[in-house]
C-alpha cells in the first residue's frame, strides 16, 4: 500500500509544490472566470489579466522564497 501513498504524494507534489502559489493561481483563474462570465470582459483584457497575473504570481513566489532563505 506504500506505493499507492507514494503515487498520491507524487501527484499532490506535482501541483502543490508551493501552497501559496497554487492558491494564488486558483484565485486568479476564478477571478478571470468570474469577470468573463458576469461582466463579459473583453478577450484582450481578460487574457491580459490572466497572463500578467501569472507572471506577477511567479515573481512574488520566487521573491518570497528568496527572502525566506535569506533570513535563515
Amino acid at each position, binding site marked *: 500500500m506504500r*506505493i499507492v501513498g*507514494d*503515487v498520491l504524494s*507524487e*501527484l499532490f507534489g*506535482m*501541483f*502543490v*509544490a*508551493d501552497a501559496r*502559489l*497554487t492558491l494564488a*493561481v*486558483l484565485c486568479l*483563474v476564478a477571478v*478571470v*472566470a468570474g469577470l*468573463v462570465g458576469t461582466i463579459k470582459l473583453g*478577450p*484582450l483584457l*481578460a*487574457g491580459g489579466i*490572466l*497572463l500578467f497575473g*501569472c*507572471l506577477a*504570481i*511567479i*515573481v512574488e*513566489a*520566487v*521573491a518570497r*522564497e*528568496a527572502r525566506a*532563505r535569506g533570513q535563515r
Partner: protein
Amino acid sequence: MDTIAWSVAAPAIGSTFLASLVEAVEAFTIVLAVATLRGWRPAAFGAAAGLGALALLVILLGPLLDQVPLHLLQFVIGVLLLLFGMGWLRKAILRAAAIIPLHDEDAIFASETAQLAGVTDRRHKSLDWIAAMPAFKAVLLEGLEIVFIVIAVGAGRGLLWPACGGALAACLMVLAIGVAIRQPLAKVPENTLKFGVGVMLSSFGVFWTGEGLGIPWPGQDLALAFFVLMFLAVGVATASVLRRPVVEVLR
C-alpha cells in the same frame, strides 16, 4: 500538417521531449544505481514493471478523456498545467539564481547506492524484488509526470501522438546514452531544461485556460509564442535580479 498546426505542434513536441529528458535522466540514475549494485536483471525488471504500471494507468484512464467536453478539458488541463508549469519554473528560477542548489545526479546516484547497499546487507534473501523496488518506483513516479505532460500538452488539440513521440524519443535517447556510458547522466544541463519546460508548460497553461474560459486569443495559436517570450523574459530577469553568490548557497 499546415503552418498553423506546426506552431502548436512544435512547442508540444518540444515540451514533451525536454520534460521527458529531465524525468528520464532522474529515473535512469536510480535504475543505474540498482543495476550497479544488484545487476541489470532486477533493475530491468523493476523498470519494466514501472512501465507496465504506467501503461495500465494510461489504458484505464485514457478513454475517459474522450468523454469530457473539449472546453472543459482545455480548462481543467490548462489550470493543472499552470500549477505544474509554474511550480517547475519557480524552482528553476530559484536554482538559476543560486538560491537553492542545483539537482546533482552524481549525489543522487551515490545516496541511492548507499541506501541499496544498506538494504542488501540487512536482507540477503529475496534480494531481487527488494532491489527492483527502487527502479520500479523511480520509473513509475517520474513516468507519471511524463504521462501528465503528454496528456496535458497533447489532449487539448488532438496532439497526443506527436506529444507521445516527443516523450518516447527522449526516453529512448536517455536509455541509449545511459546504457552506452553506464554512468549517471550528470552533464545534462538539467536546470536549463527545467527552466525551458517550465516556461513552455506555463505558456500552454495560460493558453488552454484562456481557451477553456472562451477567450479568443489575438493571433490564435501564435499567442503561445508571445506567452513563451513573456515567461522567459520574466523568469530570466527575476533570476538575474535575485542571483546570489554560489558560495553563499553552498554554506
